[in-house]
């Protein structure tokens, strides 16, 4: 399990970017699998796509996106 402090930092970064909470869950799931080892490249990519699918794309970026 990722460290509690790291989970908090991810959750806070997700909310700072005004993103859906499901992004936090999916990012933490990816990190959990990485920590557990045996995280094959194909599974990594599959989990990554799950994260990307809940993030806003080019047409629907939140206004005042903090990364820009």
């Amino acid at each position, binding site marked *: 399990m*990722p*460290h509690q402090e*790291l989970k908090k930092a991810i959750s806070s970064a997700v909310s700072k970017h005004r993103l859906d909470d499901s992004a936090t869950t999916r990012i933490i799931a990816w*990190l959990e699998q990485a920590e557990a080892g045996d995280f094959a490249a194909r599974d990594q990519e599959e989990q990554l796509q799950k994260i990307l699918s809940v*993030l806003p794309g080019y047409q629907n970026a939140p206004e005042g996106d903090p990364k820009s």
Partner: protein
Amino acid sequence: MKLELLGWSSKGLRCPDAEIKLIDENDHVPQVALIQMPNGTGKTTTLNCLRAAMDGSAEFWPQAYVMEFQDSTKKSDQGVFITTLRVIGSKWLIIEMTFHFDEGVVTYRTTFGSRNEDGYKPPSEVRRYMDAQFSKLLLFNGELAGKLITGFKEEHSPSGIEPTDANQIIDTFYGLHHVQELQKCAKSSYEQYLLTRKVSGRAAQVARLENALTKLRARLRILETGLNDSKTARLKLEEEIQNLQKANEDHLRRSEVYRKKQEEAISSREKAQKEIEVLLQKIAHDFPNPVFLNDRVRGGLKLLAENLDTLKLPEPTSRTFFEELLQEPLCICDREMTESAKLAIRRHSNKILGGDINGFLNAFKMAVRAHCQHPCVPSIGDHLGLLNSAHDRAAAAQSQLDDILAQAERQGDAEVKSRTEQLTAKQKRLNEIVAFIEEAERPPRAGDSEDGSCISYFRSKVAEHERLLAQATDSLDRKERTDTLTSVLASAYESAHASFKAAAIKQANGQLRQILKFNLVQISDIDRVIKLHNRSQGSEGQNLTVGYVFLAGVLHGGGNQFPLVVDSPAGKLDDEVRKEVGTLLPKLIKQLVAFVIASERQWFVEPLADSANEDVLYLTHLRLNDYTRTMIIPGLGGDTVSNSDSGVVIKGRDAFFALGEESAKHKELES
């Protein structure tokens, strides 16, 4: 998490066949295990096998590297290395590595409790601590701790294991390196995606953008690395310059001719420098006060306060006052409250009562009035004048000191001359470095080009080209999602890393205050190297102390316990430093397994054993050949705890200390 190393055994490998048991018959694992292995006994092979047992990396070793582990005398087809660990004080974890020399591969078998399976499969409770990043923290060369402060030069380990730095240690321990892995994964997935997005008709444009981007990224990487290196070099040069200047001043202070003049100049420089310090603090303190910045603000405020409405009260809070006053038999001026008086009060109160803002305006007027009654405070102009004058005095004193030095040099003082030459060269180099740092860190400006060194300019050019490439390949949507993810991860990483770093510094500084009571060194920051307060490095002993305190603090934080396997902990140290490190290690590390050679024992082992309350296991591991069999082993004594046709392990303090002594005795007898 508590992980203990209980021992290991090897068979058919380059190191002699042997079994090393760190746990005794009462299930006790000593705090310190000292394993003495003379050169040529296969120490490197053992350490590399232990590391591979702790991270599963042998599955990926190239064939040629695997073959290096083969016993060159017997050339057997297989070799086995078994490592035994204990997890959380109870369950045993056994990692078995089989070397298949006919194929040049290594396979693993993992046993945990009653579970026994093929492959590298540590249980979930320890899995995160058994990877290549983490194994670098548990098995390391004795020089690592010191290098966490002095930094790593371009080093390359033959086993392909990169040295780790202080920041990485924090990242590894708290799992932040996985955040960086996810970032890398997202970026490389996007790059792969771009390769599939060849839009017809735009091939030339895409190729041009890709080329430009490659060049820009390469230049940016060079500049960022250069900036990091320059900052480290600047710190080092500044300290060297300071030391040389101090050495010159100390030298002249001893001379009858220059002492008086020099002391006057130094005292005047120090006085001016203190004034500068005080004035700078004052300016920083008063800076938020607008009156301090310009006295005309005071006049302006007074004028504003005078021109505000007079005799106004905030309506919501003050209306009740008038209503209650009308019920009183007497007014506040002691006159009787007649009907005509009541009428007059009602009429005037409506004029006096204003909005809520009047409460604030009244307070503002009072504050301005009080402020204007104070005598004028010195303005920033006055302070800057004083600062200039103090600066001039400091410069004049410095120039006096330079004159004294020049005079001494003219008089043929060789020491001063040599130091002054060094100073000139170092100052020149420092100026160049500072100029580069300023140029690299400045904001971009009109006229910047790719010939320059402004990092922000290159970052914006890279971003611009990435966007153009995304447009040209119709990949803006995917780029947006990838950028959002990497930005979220960067922000989470930064915040978590800062928090872990602050905790590590606090913890280490607390412990350093206890350990280095008489020569205190404190950590100011952790970057690639650990930065110390007011100096770039401490003495060798201080550097090692800080390094070990930091490392042990991170590894043993939160009740965790891991074994630290250190190769040659006292190898290149002076006698005094050996004693310091020997005493220190058991105070910090709960299980230390140290590989030593005979020449390291002196000044190191006894303080180490004292500090560990004699909870020490002494093992001497020798390769068996005619010489060791006839000349060495008979004179050692001790208990033979492992014996094969290629190696022997002898347990006992006396045998441990006798190794190396018996050959000297033998030579003595012969002569």
